[in-house]
């Protein structure tokens, strides 16, 4: 498994741990509140850390994380953060419509390739990661090992 895949796996596990902490039942609201906050912080801090690391990969010009189309973490330079957020939100929504029709399973990645740049969109729990690079960049190769 290459570097980025292993990082994503960690994020999926942290997102799952947070999701489970939210579903806990019981009367001990104080403990559940603290645990939920702790799990959420672990997850979000890991997302922020990954966003900060991905930008060091060859060819990557920006890496952002969004929640429901609004910016949550960012590194590098994005021409219009809000517009990108709206676009990826819409892209994921449309892909999710196709998910049922085409039996794709849960949408994990979308790649949009333009004449100049391309964007990889990756869903992680409630968040969406977005990696921007020039069209020619081989993202699989660039992200295969950490270049920090």
């Amino acid at each position, binding site marked *: 498994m290459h570097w980025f895949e292993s990082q994503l796996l960690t994020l999926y596990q942290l997102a799952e741990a947070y999701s489970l902490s*939210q579903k806990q039942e019981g009367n001990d*609201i*104080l403990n559940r509140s603290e645990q*939920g906050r702790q799990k959420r912080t672990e997850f979000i801090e890991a997302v922020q850390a990954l966003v900060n690391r991905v930008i060091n990969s060859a060819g990557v010009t920006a890496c952002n994380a969004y929640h429901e189309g*609004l910016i949550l*973490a960012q590194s590098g330079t994005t021409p219009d953060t809000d517009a990108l*957020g709206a676009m990826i939100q819409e892209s994921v929504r449309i892909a999710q419509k196709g998910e049922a029709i085409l039996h794709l399973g849960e949408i994990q990645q979308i790649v949009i390739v333009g004449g100049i740049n391309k964007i990889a969109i990756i869903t992680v729990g409630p968040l969406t990661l977005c990696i921007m690079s020039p069209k020619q960049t081989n993202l699989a190769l660039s992200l295969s090992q950490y270049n920090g």
Partner: protein
Amino acid sequence: MSNIHSIEFRRSHSGEIDSILRNLMSLQGVTAAAIIDSDGLVTHIHRDFEVNTDALGASVQIVFGAASKAARHVGHNLANMVICENTEGYILLAPVEAGFMLALVTEREALLGRVRFELKETIPVLKKLFVNFL
């Protein structure tokens, strides 16, 4: 259910509410986090600048009241959150329980999605705390 609780119970709940506000204050760009009661009085606040708490409390209730009316007028039922985008930052408001509101004040540099995500995830916990607390 009786709403009479021991002082220790109230203290621990109040302590947890303070922890939640402290956690919200740790987010990039958040400059104030407050709980405001239905009369517009600030019951809990963490801030890193001087703010007129009476004015903040009153305006939060007025703004949220107006937004709630607007939501009802267009058939959207309840308002779950109000975001005011200002020249120098954002104000985010969300109802908690029994007329209590959570208000966050941020600088322009705040990551809106980050603050909104935290607010959305925090509200259900605050609701449970307030149900027990009141």
